[in-house]
């Protein structure tokens, strides 16, 4: 069995260094927010994780379409890997957001549009994983996975929109204006750096997950060969 490719090995190291650097930047470079205090620092990783999660879901739909067109198994492995990694990132984003909300809004959770949409996205992709688990035939699993990834990705913006309309007709007292948070230049720089670093974290984990998927494929094929 091949060990990790050299590039992946270096990527691991770069990612670890960057992640440590990002942590330092968040705690030492970024100023403490006046009203929210130190808990605001969770915001940098929160937004980065959410962003990276979104990218992963976009990758999954691209991989899904590519699979349906080319029928190459590698696209299926890529789509599955992207969803799995993104689901974790998105969950991290929700948990980090919760920690932030506890201090700022005084509650772990509110039914604000963004939070509600995030919860639904998480459930949609959890359903994707359950669909795949329920199917044994690899070709069918790949096909259904691709189809569901497409349906899910199209439904998410409409869900977002519908929840937006819901909350603008019925204004919510807890609604935040986090878009208008006064960010100082240093905060913006920190945020950008976190985004950059999290993209590396995603790339690294995605690569590992891809390799895992490919090895899994190989095992499945070997098992078929043995049973024949």
């Amino acid at each position: 069995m091949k060990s990790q490719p050299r590039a992946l090995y270096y990527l691991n190291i770069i990612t670890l260094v960057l992640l440590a650097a990002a942590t330092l930047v968040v705690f030492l470079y970024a100023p403490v927010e006046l009203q929210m205090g130190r808990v605001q620092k969770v915001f940098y990783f929160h937004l980065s994780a959410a962003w990276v999660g979104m990218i992963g879901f976009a990758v999954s739909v691209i991989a899904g379409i590519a699979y349906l067109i080319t029928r190459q198994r590698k696209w299926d492995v890529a789509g599955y890997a992207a969803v799995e990694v993104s689901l974790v990132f998105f969950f991290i984003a929700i948990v980090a957001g919760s920690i932030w909300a506890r201090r700022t809004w005084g509650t772990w959770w509110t039914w604000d549009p963004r939070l509600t949409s995030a919860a639904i996205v998480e459930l949609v992709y959890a359903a994707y994983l359950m669909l795949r688990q329920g199917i044994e035939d690899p070709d069918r699993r790949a096909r259904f996975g691709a189809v569901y990834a497409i349906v899910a990705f199209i439904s998410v913006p409409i869900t977002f929109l519908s929840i937006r309309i819901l909350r603008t007709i019925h204004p919510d007292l807890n609604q935040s204006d986090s878009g208008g948070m006064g960010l100082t230049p240093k905060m913006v720089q920190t945020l950008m750096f976190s985004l950059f670093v999290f993209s590396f974290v995603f790339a690294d984990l995605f690569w590992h997950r891809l390799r895992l998927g490919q090895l899994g494929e190989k095992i499945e094929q070997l098992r078929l060969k043995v049973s024949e």
Partner: protein
Amino acid sequence: MPDTSPPAPPPPRSSLSAFIQAVRAIIWKDLAAELRSRELISAMLVFSLLMILIFNFALELDTQAKANITSGVLWATFAFAGTLGFNRSMATEKDRGCLDGLLLAPVDRSAIFFGKAIGNLVFMLIVEAIILPVYSVLYNTNLIIPGLLLVIVLGSVGYVAVGTLLASMAVQARTRDVLLPILLFPVAIPVLIAAVKGSGGFLEGARMADITPWLNLLVVYDVVFIAVAFMIFDYVVEE
């Protein structure tokens, strides 16, 4: 002596009319089967009545129940009854090998989708047409409002389009019965929100300006998902 020669092949027709004929044949098959067995609609109907009964105790529904609760109860009932129907209608195709037969037929695959979806829609509308007056009587309100009926039709169309597509995948999985609601509900949330809010608006007699966004959303959802299902249904049933 009777003429035993095979009937002349039908004159070639345009692909559109052939498509429509295939869709009609599938709908007719579903309706005829249902007319004889009556298993699907009766199951959906009894289930819906039970749901309303449960909501009655769970939410203390009374004649003064607010309009928004009524629309919520109605749509929760329709959504669950719908999944029951979609699953059943696809499972019968799958279990008795009918789906393979349909797939062997020289018709466009999407005609199968539209046939099944319209059949499901008819079943769902029949159930809704029975539930609405029953609910009206039980809770002494009038649910037969043109606007509400419009919302119910629009909502059912979108729900059935996605439901039929996902049910055709769910029945091919090992965990078929539990899988459909899990797949369907998260992606059907926009249609459920819009339908609940639109119905509630008409029941409360809200201004049209407040209801229009929901109607628009329902139309958008219907169009988008009918188009998506039309394009990707081929990939679901192939093999």
